[in-house]
């Protein structure tokens, strides 16, 4: 279960316990109140009986009777005493005299009986209220009275109204006794209260620990920028499309450490973040993604003219050197920025685009800024793993075929198979691999896609025995056991068709183990398939490959087309030399990106045997070409 759900569950559980404890307390309090109310009701009946007895003894004028019959005073006192049970502390009879002062008429005490007509000064006005309302009143004694809990002031009535007041004082001891009925429950409640109080303290302590731990997790100790953890959390509560993103990396930062020392390097990083902070609008965040790589999030609301802002930021970060430990350190910076399209929901999609762009900058000279412009939400979506996964699950992939022709006759000799993803909402829109391939590389989805392409290729070969096909294969795939197993399975299953298939090897990285690669090529060739080197003349695909690898075909890089248009004389010499070398090595040469007749003629004149490009045929469904033929 995710941590956030566990936290919510714990908080819910404690809240539930609190509610339960409060419920128990209220219920217990009500139960005790009911007991006490029942006792008070009993006391009312008790008072009523006493008054009936008094009436019998004193007819309708108590004071006059007691004034006249002295022996009755003691008798009444004894009657009151007889009613003095454990719940009553005092029972006495009062009367208001002509000057509105209260005086004792009778007292039910066993000893120290209050003398007849001694003054009594009640603190409460409730006594007067009984005279006025002729109704019984209840007086709850406060904490200041240690003996009494409740006083019941009962009117003794005659024809003229209230004649006297009978006071029954219920003792605090008795109230405590009533409470003992619920005391086991109260103990449980107290235990729960203690438990909850301790739990709350523990929660506060844990919250503090969490806050501290979170601070360590979210703040980079060296630069005080935020960490990736912060980034992940940030977009739980913020919308991705409300922010601009800038990804930057200090070029060759390791060299700064090497040239100076690590302390200087650290100080440069700190100064860099400080300078970045100064130049960013408020509410922006800086995240240190790795050593010298930083991502900044800038609220769109805080920035006007994004392009100008990013250019100005870039200048301020690289134009002047960093003064650290009395040394001036200049840096170069590769930076890419994106104006996030609306409706982008996942930060991963944005980061992938920025990463790819930054990598491209790094590979092509570093030290510059490139802004990703006019990126549509659709394009961002095509790089999303979920989107691609969905496309694979719902078979929204297809293969197109681009003809490779003989340069002499323009006759189609084979087709290059090109995979396309079909847009979810617009079935006519086909998405090229540049959007989705990098996302799924080294994942199960990549194998799944490869399986689809291989299946399509061999099925086409099987269906059309007269055509030849060419498919792309990443050099890294040859290192992947699963992929090689898959290819071998297809080659073995369809070995009669294998000789009509060419594997075009695309490489991103330099080859170090030529022997191993040649062994893999041999495996692919086992049933007669051919090996082509794609994009020859660019990156690592150069003459070394020709001398060290066993290849059948070389496909010229697109740059040669550009060169033919701009520096035709020099380009022709180079292409002629490649063609000559290839002929000697018994390799075929294919010129790609032939988009016009002019270019086609140039390649033909040079003697390049095969040509491919829009001039000769765009990528289409195979049926269309077959119908044309």
């Amino acid at each position: 279960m995710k941590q956030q759900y566990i936290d919510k569950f714990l908080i819910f559980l404690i809240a539930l316990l609190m509610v339960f404890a409060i419920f128990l307390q209220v219920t217990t309090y009500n139960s005790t109140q009911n007991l006490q109310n029942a006792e008070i009701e009993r006391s009312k009946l008790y008072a009523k009986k006493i008054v009936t007895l008094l009436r019998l003894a004193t007819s309708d004028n108590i004071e006059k009777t007691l004034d006249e019959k002295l022996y009755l005073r003691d008798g009444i006192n004894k009657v009151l005493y007889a009613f003095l049970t454990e719940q009553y502390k005092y029972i006495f009879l009062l009367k208001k005299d002509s000057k509105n002062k209260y005086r004792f008429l009778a007292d039910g005490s066993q000893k120290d009986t209050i003398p007849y007509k001694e003054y009594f000064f009640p603190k409460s006005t409730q006594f007067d209220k009984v005279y006025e309302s002729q109704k019984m009143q209840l007086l709850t004694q406060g904490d200041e009275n240690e003996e009494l809990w409740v006083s019941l002031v009962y009117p003794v009535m005659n024809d003229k109204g209230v004649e006297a007041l009978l006071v029954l004082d219920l003792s605090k001891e008795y109230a405590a006794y009533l409470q003992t009925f619920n005391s086991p429950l109260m103990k449980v409640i107290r235990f729960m209260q203690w438990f909850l109080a301790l739990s709350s303290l523990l929660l506060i302590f844990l919250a503090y620990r969490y806050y501290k731990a979170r601070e360590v997790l979210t703040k980079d100790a060296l630069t005080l920028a935020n960490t990736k953890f912060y980034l992940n959390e940030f977009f739980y509560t913020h919308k991705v499309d409300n922010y601009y993103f800038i990804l930057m990396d200090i070029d060759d930062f390791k060299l700064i450490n090497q040239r100076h020392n690590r302390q200087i390097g650290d100080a440069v990083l700190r100064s860099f973040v400080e300078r970045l902070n100064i130049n960013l609008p408020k509410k922006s965040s800086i995240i240190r993604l790795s050593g010298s790589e930083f991502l900044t999030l800038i609220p769109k609301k805080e920035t006007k003219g994004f392009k100008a802002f990013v250019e100005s930021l870039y200048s301020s970060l690289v134009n002047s050197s960093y003064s650290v430990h009395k040394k001036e350190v200049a840096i170069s910076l590769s930076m890419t920025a994106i104006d996030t399209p609306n409706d982008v929901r996942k930060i991963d999609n944005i980061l992938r685009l920025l990463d790819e762009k930054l990598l491209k900058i790094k590979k092509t000279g570093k030290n510059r800024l490139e802004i990703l412009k006019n990126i549509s939400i659709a394009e961002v979506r095509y790089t999303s793993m979920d989107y691609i996964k969905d496309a694979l699950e719902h078979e929204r992939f297809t293969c197109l075929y681009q003809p490779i022709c003989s340069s002499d006759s323009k006759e189609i000799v084979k087709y290059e198979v090109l995979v396309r993803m079909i847009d979810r909402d617009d079935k006519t829109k086909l998405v090229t691999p540049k959007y989705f391939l990098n996302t799924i590389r080294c994942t199960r989805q990549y194998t799944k896609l490869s399986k689809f392409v291989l299946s399509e290729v061999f099925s086409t070969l099987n269906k059309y025995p007269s055509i030849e096909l060419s498919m792309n294969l990443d050099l890294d795939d040859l290192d992947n056991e699963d992929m090689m197993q898959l290819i071998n399975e297809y080659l073995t299953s369809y070995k009669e068709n294998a000789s009509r298939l060419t594997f075009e090897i695309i490489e991103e990285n330099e080859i170090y183990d030529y022997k191993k690669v040649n062994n893999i090529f041999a495996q692919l060739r086992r049933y007669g398939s051919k090996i082509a080197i794609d994009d020859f003349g660019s990156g690592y695909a150069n003459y070394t490959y020709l001398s060290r690898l066993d290849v059948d075909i070389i496909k010229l890089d697109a740059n040669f087309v550009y060169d033919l248009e701009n520096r035709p004389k020099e380009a022709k010499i180079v292409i002629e030399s490649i063609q000559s070398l290839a002929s000697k090595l018994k390799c075929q040469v294919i010129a790609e990106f032939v988009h016009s007749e002019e270019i086609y003629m140039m390649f033909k004149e040079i003697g390049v045997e095969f040509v491919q490009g829009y001039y000769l045929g765009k990528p289409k469904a195979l049926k269309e070409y077959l119908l044309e033929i």
Partner: protein
Amino acid sequence: LLLYGQAYALEVRSTLKLYHHLFSSMSSKKSVNVYVEDVEYANIFVKSKYINLVSDVDKADFILVTTDKMLMKLNTKHMSNDTIIITNKYSHMTQSDKIVGAFYYRKGRKQFLFVKPRLEEHNVTLPSMYKKYIVDEL
């Protein structure tokens, strides 16, 4: 022991508060001289800066009568009008006209009692909160 100590402290505080108020209502002096024979009261009053305990009845502004023996002694002695005698028993009020007022407990309730002619004799005017405790005669 702690609970007892706490209860005792509260008792001292409430008793002092009550007598401070009572004495200051009957006298305008910054501090008052009090004569009391009861050790328990003396031990409480000694903690007050407002009350000075005196051993001579004649030097007292207030005399607190707590026993019948003391009442009898005072009854035989001529007292100045400046000295106000109070008691903690209702019965003392009925036994001696010299006693101006009383503070005592009845049925667990605090009680004050002042007799009007006796107050007038000593030129004592009580604040309004004590008015309801004043009676014309006993």
